[in-house]
């Protein structure tokens, strides 16, 4: 556990809990011996914690013997990695051409208006984070959105509302 002492966990601020630190260190320990482990580690952290906490960056850097700048550079390069907690669910709306051709621009505007957020924003109740995505590979059945890992095609504005209702209902039922 010597590695833990490198970072004073008390100084990490409110975003990172003890459990999150343990999760980050556990993931690093499990994956650091594979070739080029940083991106797999970031994926695993985001999957487990929900995001890559800013204060996890020095921990990861120390574990992988990289500089903080190198880790930050990778985290910030990729659109998928995020550094704030976001919502309980993430909704990705496709903005690419094939979806534009069947009304994605209207769906996007409708989503922003009804959820009351811009892209990268989270609804006030913390249920839904809205993100853009550039192609979900469902280009013959657009407009497409992805709710967490689940793809939906032919999403009209009305269908979008139904899906958001279902998503919120699912959240309410969770412990």
């Amino acid at each position, binding site marked *: 556990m010597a590695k833990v002492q490198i970072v004073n966990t008390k100084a990490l601020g409110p975003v990172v809990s003890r459990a999150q630190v343990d999760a980050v260190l556990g993931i690093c320990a499990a994956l650091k011996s594979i070739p080029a482990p940083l991106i797999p580690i970031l994926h695993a952290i985001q999957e487990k914690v929900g995001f890559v906490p800013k204060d996890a960056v020095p921990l990861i850097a120390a574990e992988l013997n990289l500089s903080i700048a190198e880790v930050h*550079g990778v985290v910030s390069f*990729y659109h998928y990695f995020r550094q704030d907690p976001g919502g309980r669910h993430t909704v990705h709306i496709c903005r690419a*051409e094939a979806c534009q051709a069947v009304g994605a621009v209207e769906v996007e505007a409708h989503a922003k208006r009804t959820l009351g957020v811009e892209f990268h924003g989270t609804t006030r109740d913390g249920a839904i984070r809205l993100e853009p995505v*550039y*192609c979900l590979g*469902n*280009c013959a*059945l657009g407009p497409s959105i992805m709710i967490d890992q689940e*793809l939906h095609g032919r999403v009209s504005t009305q269908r979008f509302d139904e899906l958001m209702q279902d998503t919120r209902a699912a959240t309410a039922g969770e412990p």
Partner: protein
Amino acid sequence: MTTRIYVPRDAAARSVGSDATARALQAEGQRRSIDIQVIRNGSRGLLWLEPLVEVVTPAGRVAYGPVQPADVAGLFDAGFISGATHSLSHGPTEEIPYFKKQERLTFARVGITDPRSLEDYLQHGGYRGLKAALDMEPAAIVGAVTASGLRGRGGAAFPAGIKWKTVLGVSADQKYIVCNADEGDSGTFSDRMVMEGDPFVLIEGMTIAGIATGATSGYIYLRWEYPDAKAALNAAIASAYEKRYLGENILGTDKRFDLEVRSGAGAYICGEETSLLESLESKRGQVRFKPPLPAIQGLFGKPTVINNVITLASVPIILDKGADHYQHFGMGRSRGTLPIQLAGNIKHGGLIEKAFGISLRELLYDYGGGSLSGRPIRAVQVGGPLGAYLPESQFDTQLDYEAFTEIKGMLGHGGIVVFDDTVDMAAQARYAMEFCAIESCGKCTPCRIGSTRGVEVIDRLIAGNNPAKQETLLRDLCDTMTYGSLCALGGLTPYPVLSALNHFPEDFDTSARTGVPA
């Protein structure tokens, strides 16, 4: 007797409810005490009919679609179990003209087999290519790929055999096979469909590439947006290891090949091969200078074959049926088949594998049935976000790499995105620049800064702010991006921008649109 019913597990089919349809079929069969077995196959590619349900009858597989859970009871009532007609029936699947007219080589098994079953793969001709390759000298395998005329299906259309030959000719303690599964072009989904619908064919193609070039390790770089493909690949890889098609002593020989899936993290640029290699090395996905070529110094500095999914998935049939068989399809220097993806505002969107040479018009109207909205088709974008927008006057162009180069377009990965007459081409041109700005890796100036300036110039042009001057500036900027960018992102963004401007100038003319002179 158990009746087998196929319901696709493909992500596109699932996106319109095939899971619920599969569950409803199971439940209704149970309720009526009819013995059915639901098999989750890949998609046949007739995507407007998804969820497409197929029933196995003595006369072959009979298609019904699109089938929603509410239709299930009615299908049972009509006797679909024995292939009876119903308002949703389409007759024998393989007689549907959209499917029947295709030439399926790479997609031979997609939609037919259970992608989770190695036995099913073997029963449908799987691993015959690998067995042939194991009896050949590496140079002969490479020779077959070269003779087949197979060119990189990712978009650049570089002859696959030449890449392989380079890697074979370099001696190194370690070589790699990397599969580019970062299918980011809008309008494309053929990689996804193969990975989900027939993952073993990609694994087999990569294994053959390894044996041909002396590479013992492979990576599939898969975009995060494809979780279903990831699950399908990982399941197939596990089965292949278990049955000795991967790992040490492949099929009892002294050959070894290890394979792993790595996830991307949402960066369009990582579809560019050198940027992809950087990302596989867990770095920022910034483009590398070439030379050195990846074939000489690729992943971790070692000789690397890097090919697109479709390229690698086309290798098994070349080794199985011979280079001549594959080479026999196509036209000019574009040999074999291309899995074409018909997308956007199109009535019958889906996957069409055809020999090179088919015309756009045939695809749009004979296969596609015109626009989904029923309005006239005004423009199509071929080859992804970096491909040109083509007007109706160019719809007779044949799908052939050289024919597209001639009209200042590109075939790319074979995606065709259709727009009806409500499209605003100035908005599309602006989007192309905006996309480049969002996705630029930032390494070279023409792309990084040019794309942002491009959005601004187009905004001024659309606003009618000294339009003649803005147009000159935009063309000059495009010239700089074309000739000054390090890779295809900055270098090809001018394609959609200039094709929109050249073919649809009226959309950029504010005075024409508003009636107010600029």
